[in-house]
């Protein structure tokens, strides 16, 4: 395969080739959602113009094609994360739904009173709230692993929190606020020792680094299409076959049944058991095309590219005296995400002012209020990279940052 060259790929992204507020757009919020390359848009358009049908149910060409495209995307996802079998790949709507599905079907079924559910303090709300509900309904205990001053979970912290009562450990592979890459292998090892199940929220990891679910040996692994060049409305839940088979279904209706009588029903085997209602075929097609695009570039090149940008950015940002940086600064243990604050300026004002310079970043709690509380900050600003970002984006960002305080009446 000829690798696409990462330089110049910005031309594939129509949204990025526009001016906003009289400036070129520097899109630095890919941790929230990514932009789609024309290859993905074209794949979806092609599906919509040639192959659209309700899959699994029809004996005619359009439906057969739709079924084939859907199955093909599932196969692609399977290979992308190196799952053992295609039936271990469930299509969902997004990471949030995947996590809710696991909490409801696995958690509500297998967590018992007194069991402990372990999270990290840096989890996204989507990996907190569903577990709060399980804990409350089942009388289980929710425990947190806290971060050290470099934004990392230490071995000691894992040992402190993961113990004989631990039933589930649910943790992000990469923090969406600090960029920390959490030590999944080490966590899985400890979980295995105590017989706990590990749920990994891979929303931020899968788009940016090679993920091999077999090597990680995670029990569940979930992510979203829209954060990896794919469309909104499609997400993935990977689960080990045995676990998925033992879980009751989540959404009920449509295609996921075997027999239905007036009072009862039996269910189709996995993956169909978990995919009720008309599937989002075009979403799956878009995700498949996104994976193809990512593989054409290569995840190693993507990570490499992002780390170069990170180095370049941190060099400049650390030089500015009124900028504070949260989380790890060591590039090996983090992804392309920087959370920062500007002395005397509320993060929300930072975003608005940067927007006026064409720079799109995000400010707020980043759906991680417990982490904000733990860090003692009401909010942070966050910049995040993806394969289409360039040094030009960084330069524009740094220039804008240097203007922020002026607008709030500070000398510099």
């Amino acid at each position, binding site marked *: 395969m000829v690798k696409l060259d990462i330089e110049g790929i910005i031309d594939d992204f129509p949204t990025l080739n526009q001016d906003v507020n009289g400036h070129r757009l520097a899109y630095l919020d890919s941790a929230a959602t990514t932009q789609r390359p024309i290859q993905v848009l074209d794949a979806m358009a092609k599906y919509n113009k040639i192959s659209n049908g309700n899959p699994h149910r029809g004996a005619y060409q359009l439906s057969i094609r739709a079924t084939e495209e859907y199955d093909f995307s599932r196969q692609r996802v399977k290979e992308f994360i190196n799952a053992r079998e295609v039936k271990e790949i469930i299509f969902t709507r997004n990471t949030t739904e995947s996590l809710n599905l696991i909490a409801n079907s696995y958690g509500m079924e297998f967590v018992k009173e007194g069991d402990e559910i372990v999270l990290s303090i840096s989890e996204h709300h989507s990996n907190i709230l569903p577990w709060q509900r399980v804990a409350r309904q089942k009388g289980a205990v929710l425990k947190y692993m806290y971060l050290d001053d470099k934004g990392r979970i230490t071995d000691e912290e894992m040992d402190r929190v993961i113990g004989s009562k631990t039933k589930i450990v649910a943790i992000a592979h990469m923090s969406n606020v600090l960029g920390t890459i959490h030590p999944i292998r080490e966590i899985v090892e400890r979980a295995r020792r105590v017989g706990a199940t590990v749920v990994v929220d891979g929303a931020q990891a899968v788009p940016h680094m090679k993920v091999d679910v077999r090597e990680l040996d995670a029990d569940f692994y979930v992510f979203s299409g829209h954060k990896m060049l794919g469309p909104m409305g499609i997400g993935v839940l990977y689960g080990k076959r045995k676990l998925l088979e033992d879980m009751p279904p989540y959404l009920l209706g449509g295609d996921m049944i075997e027999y239905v009588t007036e009072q009862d029903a039996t269910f189709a085997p996995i993956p169909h058991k978990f995919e009720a209602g008309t599937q989002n075929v075009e979403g799956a097609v878009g995700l498949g095309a996104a994976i193809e695009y990512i593989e054409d570039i290569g995840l190693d090149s993507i990570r490499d590219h992002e780390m170069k940008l990170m180095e370049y950015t941190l060099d400049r940002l650390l030089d500015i005296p009124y900028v504070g940086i949260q989380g790890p600064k060591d590039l090996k243990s983090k992804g392309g995400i920087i959370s920062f604050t500007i002395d005397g300026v509320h993060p*929300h004002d930072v975003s608005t002012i940067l927007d*006026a310079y064409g720079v799109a970043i995000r400010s707020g*709690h980043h759906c991680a209020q417990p982490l904000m509380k733990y860090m003692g900050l009401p909010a942070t600003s966050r910049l995040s990279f993806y394969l289409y970002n360039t040094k030009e984006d960084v330069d524009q960002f740094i220039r804008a940052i240097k203007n922020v305080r002026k607008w709030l009446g500070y000398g510099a």
Partner: protein
Amino acid sequence: MGLESIYTQLIMEHNRSSHNRRALKNPDISERGYNPNCGDDIVLEVEIEDNIIKDAAYSGVGCAISQASTSMMIDLVKGKSIDEALKLVDIFLSMIKKDITAEEELEVLEDSIIFQNISNMPARVKCAVLAWHSLREGLKHV
């Protein structure tokens, strides 16, 4: 809308001023205002005597816009009756929604009229109205 019309001298002054940033001794109203999207989180305190807002103050964190808007509102309603204050809140919110645009009608808002064009920055509207909503909620329960 350029930044000039929002990060104005006046707003910056209110943002950085602390004359309304304090705690009251015996507030009759203590109303939390929270904007989950951006984390603005204020507590508005009001002292009422004979139906008149005798004193008001706020604490908490927020962006320049929410802080300035809160501070200007406090300056505006102090000394007014509850009914007058509620009226002012209505006018302010109607201004934001562009339901009222006539200069004459808005004059009563004094400095707060500066937020007239905030609706051109939809992501910041909630910051500007936070304190006003809190005041209305609080006055309801007197």
